[in-house]
């Protein structure tokens, strides 16, 4: 029975029997991974200066919590998160803070972002780290999430969304499956490959922690079949963690970490429970299988709804690098201050992967890879399909930087002047979102933004397949980005004008209401006064009747009129006094409903 179970784990871990699905389209690209994936992982040299951006994640930027001139230690908090969707930033080595100022960041816009600049002292001295949470199975999910947040863990696949937020989908969205993205479908990049080969055990630990946090039933690790070493290493690590059994032939040179973790497993039997739920799935190599929605479709057949998130179909997707960072955070208390980065392309002398501190400049990494070689067409951060071109290499590596590419003119030739679209439809053939790129292009070009949205512009993931195959060399992705940005701007404008209109209408309504209230108050006062003034009149008429007997009716009539006028005056004065007094007072005494309604309107006006 036990052996049967074990066997199930083996086949489970190797994922042989698993059914796979396909997404529409996709392209086979020259992989170019051999440039970097055959060389051993290196530690990048400690740079003399670290430029650590305070915004390396989606959400609000962190707020600097150190001062210029202050000495910081490795792993010390230097930027505090602002709000829920934000992430802290830590110093990646010890040294002196020399500046906190905007610097050019690795961002497609080339915008400057606030950075903490640290002159490293070479001591690389660790700060006091939070206590490791070794028994994470017993730990509370909220505690684990807090630790993941405190350690600044964000998605390391590129989007850099704060992981703790992603790991907290809420009670209304129960998570069935955790998907770990080890696909790495972009050409050239091999850092996830090397991470899986070398630190599979850590990744399994991180997955186990995330399974604990999410309460998910299973975890599927998707890896493209062009990374057999990584698949084997991950399968070995899963089986090792689940059963303590070593499968397959240990790979020369890469076995170190696995053997170490085997010893750890023998010590802490507790972690086996989660590893049983992990399955490593080999998927066919096809770009863009590593897209979150595409990978979910491949592994589960489920489609994340358009404009939706994976949690809506009971799935959370994380990158292998994130899993490693989660393990570091929980089991070692280490914040996310370093990552693996591929430096590749035929424009560098020795392409390789290295362990790089966040804040290291790309220029230093390229120098460590032997510097530039030959003619350089462009420098790209990220992969050739979705990465962005930068003009300078004086840019810091962030938590999301997976690759720095120096491409030669042969690798990235100038595509020339675009020709007219001949509607050949190849773009539609390869589109992984099953869009009609040629139609969207047509409307984007005509600035017909509503039409682009009719053709589901916002389902475009900007993978670049369409532009890659376009025989007319039209920069399609650029048109879609343009149309999206314009649509957002228009949406903002619309919202602003709508807001202005609402405010205007509210103001009109308020003025009208106040006027109405004043009128009704006047009427009420009048009504209240009318019987009073009648009574004295009656009294007066009786008295005048009596006086009449005495004679001179004219005089008494005048007297009565005078009296009435005086009374009216007094009443008017009273009304003015009551309205000019604080509104709540009158409201409280009269119409209790009107005051709460009027107050927010005033407040609203004050705000803007």
């Amino acid at each position, binding site marked *: 029975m036990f052996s049967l179970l074990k066997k199930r784990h083996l086949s489970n871990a190797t994922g042989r029997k698993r059914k796979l699905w396909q997404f529409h389209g996709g392209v086979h690209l020259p992989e170019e991974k051999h440039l970097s994936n055959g060389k051993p992982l290196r530690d990048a040299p400690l740079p003399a200066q670290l430029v650590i951006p305070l915004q390396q994640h989606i959400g609000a930027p962190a707020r600097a919590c150190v001062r210029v001139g202050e000495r910081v230690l490795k792993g010390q908090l230097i930027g505090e998160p602002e709000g829920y969707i934000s992430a802290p930033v830590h110093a990646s080595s010890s040294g002196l803070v020399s500046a906190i100022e905007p610097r050019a960041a690795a961002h497609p816009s080339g915008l400057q972002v606030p950075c903490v600049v640290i002159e490293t002292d070479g001591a690389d001295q660790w700060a006091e780290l939070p206590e490791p949470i070794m028994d994470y199975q017993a730990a509370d999910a909220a505690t684990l999430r807090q630790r993941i947040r405190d350690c600044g863990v964000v998605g390391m696949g590129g989007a850099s969304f704060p992981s703790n937020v992603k790991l907290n989908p809420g009670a209304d969205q129960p998570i069935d499956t955790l998907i770990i993205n080890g696909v790495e479908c972009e050409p050239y990049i091999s850092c996830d490959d090397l991470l899986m080969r070398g630190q599979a055990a850590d990744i399994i630990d991180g997955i186990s922690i995330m399974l604990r946090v999410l309460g998910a039933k299973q975890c599927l690790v998707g890896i493209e079949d062009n990374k057999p070493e990584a698949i084997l290493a991950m399968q070995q690590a899963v089986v090792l963690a689940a059963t303590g059994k070593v499968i397959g032939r240990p790979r020369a040179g890469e076995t170190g970490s696995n053997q170490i973790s085997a010893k750890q497993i023998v010590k802490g039997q507790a972690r086996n429970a989660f590893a049983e739920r992990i399955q490593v799935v080999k998927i066919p190599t096809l770009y863009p299988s590593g897209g979150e929605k595409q990978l979910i479709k491949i592994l589960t057949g489920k489609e994340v*709804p358009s404009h939706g998130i994976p949690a809506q179909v009971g799935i959370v997707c994380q990158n292998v690098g994130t899993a490693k960072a989660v393990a570091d955070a929980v089991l070692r208390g280490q914040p996310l201050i370093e990552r693996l980065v591929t430096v590749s392309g035929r424009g560098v002398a020795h392409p390789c992967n290295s362990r790089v501190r966040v804040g290291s400049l790309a220029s230093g990494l390229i120098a460590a890879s032997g510097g530039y070689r030959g003619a350089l067409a462009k420098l790209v951060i990220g992969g050739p399909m979705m990465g962005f*071109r930068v003009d300078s290499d004086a840019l810091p590596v962030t938590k999301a930087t997976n690759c720095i590419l120096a491409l030669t003119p042969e690798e990235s030739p100038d595509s020339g002047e675009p*020709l007219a679209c*001949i509607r050949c439809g190849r773009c*539609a053939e390869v589109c992984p979102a*099953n869009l009609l790129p040629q139609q969207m292009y047509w409307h984007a070009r005509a600035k017909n933004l509503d039409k682009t949205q009719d053709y*589901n512009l916002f389902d475009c993931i900007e993978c*670049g397949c369409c532009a*890659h*195959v376009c025989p007319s060399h039209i920069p399609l992705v650029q048109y879609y980005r343009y149309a999206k940005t314009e649509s957002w701007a228009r949406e903002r404008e619309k919202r602003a004008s709508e807001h202005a209109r609402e405010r205007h209408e509210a103001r009109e309504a308020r003025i009208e209401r106040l006027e109405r209230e004043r009128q009704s108050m006047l009427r009420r006062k009048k009504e209240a006064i009318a019987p009073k003034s009648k009574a004295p009149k009656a009294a007066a008429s009786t008295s005048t009747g009596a006086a009449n007997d005495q004679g001179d009716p004219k005089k008494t009539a005048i007297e009565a009129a005078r009296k009435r006028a005086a009374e009216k005056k007094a009443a008017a004065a009273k009304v003015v006094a009551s309205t000019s007094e604080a509104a709540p007072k009158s409201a409280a005494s009269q119409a209790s409903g009107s005051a709460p309604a009027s107050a927010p309107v005033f407040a609203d006006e004050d705000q803007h």
Partner: protein
Amino acid sequence: MPGGFLSSPHSARVNRVDQVMLQVCLALVPGTLALVWYFGWGILINMALATVFAVSAEALVMVLRGRPILPAISDYSAVVTALLFALTVPPTLPWWMTLLGMLFAIVIVKQLYGGIGYNPFNPAMAGYVFLLISYPVELTSWLPPDIPELLQTQDLVTLSFVESARLIFTGIMPPGITWDAITAATPLDEMRTLLDQDQVISEIRQSPLWGDFGGRGWEWVGNWFLVGGLFLLWRRIITWHIPVSFLGGLLIMAGLFWFLDPQTHPHPAFHLFSGGAILGAFFIATDPVSACTTRRGQLIYGACIGALVFVIRTWGGYPDAVAFSVLLLNIAAPMIDQYTQPRVFGQARRRA
């Protein structure tokens, strides 16, 4: 909008318009050779003439539009138009008709609408139809296939290269030869005429004009164009949708009527291997600019063309119908596209 080099992807582009067009030209080679084999040098002369006229017309319009000439003519789209046109017109067509046809196709149908990518109609077919309506006699005077046995029984002769050239350029026939001696009805024409004379298929098929499916010679031209079409499919220049639905639509219609009355309706294979069916299905209806672009739309588009080809061949006023059918469906293509958008990833159903 800034230049294209700024945005991703940074990869080398794998396709180019001129390469696509050149591969189409390459795919036309087997069918062209077969046509030349059976119908003489006139085909090649027409192809050369049409190419020169089409490229010149394109260059002329570029000059008039004040645009660079080289990019426009170096995409070879005008060449493809010219070749397709020349393959559909009779090998004896006077040179000035080719000129007229090409001017109409390139200047009016293609460039007046904005040039490549913007023309709603297939230029080659529009040029052909323009001539067919204007000069019906010249456009339907085909030569007999060069099969000695056939020529002897019908008392026909073929033209040499020089004779063909002289006929095309000067209109002078070789001495002692009349039009009747060099022209013969196409199988589609023959079938129509005889059916109109109330003959039944079994009688009609007695003639040595007929091969296994269609007319002798003609059916082999169809086969060789099919080879070229398969090459295009293999090279992924076209997808299977339009050719298969085109031929499917034609076969279903022809099969239905043949099944109902095999004596007055020819076998479906006759329709398939006669006239321009194969050329139309693989080379003409698949012109991306004027065809549907959605997959489901292409199936509808192709099937409608196929069905229309049968309808016009059987009940219409012209022996063949590929050009008319393609042009009619060209107009319908944008609407078909509109209603056949694919289901986008993550959307349960297409929004109305």
